[in-house]
């Protein structure tokens, strides 16, 4: 310790920090992120309020948007075709802004079950589902989903019926994938909001399937 430490450490570099970054001392990647944000704000590329707006925008995105899209696809075959061609465009019909990155959909059928992974990092259709769960980003999921997908699904409590093959999709480009799961039996005549409640986040990644009575 020297007397320098007695000096007042008020910010003198001409900008404020987002308050949520100052609550505790950041370490590791968080410290790096804070340093980079601080430098970019200092350079005037954007300001702290814009960072907060971007965080708020991402936090506001939830799987409920994806569930609405799936429910519409279940009740409207023509919409489903449009969603399979271009999720971003189809989502706009529902008033959903899916962000800048292209999202495409794959519909599971009794013949094929689709499962999404990003082995290289954690590419995920955040524009429709919000931030990915921790397990989706784990090395274990990323490595095993492409190598032993059936064992991974079993650990999620999902056993595929005999005769249904699995197709794993490794998201390796500037494009995100979303699964449209199979509409469960016993939902004939249901309205869209009721159907959407059956569509979990995991079912749109392919680690679960919607069902009636099990939530």
């Amino acid at each position, binding site marked *: 310790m020297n007397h320098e430490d007695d000096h007042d450490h008020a910010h003198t570099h001409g900008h404020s920090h987002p308050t949520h970054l100052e609550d505790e001392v950041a370490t590791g990647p968080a410290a790096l992120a804070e340093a980079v944000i601080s430098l970019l704000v200092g350079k005037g590329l954007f300001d702290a309020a814009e960072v907060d707006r971007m965080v708020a925008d991402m936090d506001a995105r939830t799987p409920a948007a994806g569930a609405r899209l799936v429910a519409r696809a279940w009740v409207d075959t023509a919409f489903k075709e449009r969603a399979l061609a271009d999720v971003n465009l189809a989502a706009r019909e529902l008033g959903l802004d899916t962000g800048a990155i*292209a999202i*495409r959909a794959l519909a599971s059928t009794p013949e094929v079950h689709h499962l999404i992974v990003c*082995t*290289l990092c954690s590419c995920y259709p955040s524009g429709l589902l919000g931030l990915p769960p921790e397990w989706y980003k784990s090395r274990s999921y990323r490595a095993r989903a*492409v*190598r*032993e*997908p*059936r064992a991974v699904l079993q650990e999620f409590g999902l056993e595929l019926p005999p005769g249904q*093959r*699995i*197709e*794993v*999709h*490794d*998201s*390796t*480009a*500037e*494009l995100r994938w979303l699964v449209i799961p199979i509409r469960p039996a016993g939902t004939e005549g249901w309205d869209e909001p009721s159907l959407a409640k059956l569509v979990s986040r995991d079912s749109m990644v392919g680690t679960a399937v919607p069902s009636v009575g099990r939530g």
Partner: protein
Amino acid sequence: MRVKALHSPGHIRTPAYLRGREGRLVAHLLDLPDAEAMAYGRREPVVAHWRVRFVMADLWPGYDGDPTDTLTADLAQGWLEPIAEAA
């Protein structure tokens, strides 16, 4: 087609487990910015990307799932080279 077995330095978006492997084109996806160039801040070139399907049992010796199980990846044109159709 076959995925080129390149080991070029720099940022690579073609996973190692697919390099040198043979698969089938499923569909042309989009012309997208080359992610390998994006890593260095460039939005160019925009290149064709293809969905390519591989048979799991070809990728993983001893694969114990269903023999019809498959994997697809979204690969940039430059990583793909044509091969003769298997008999």
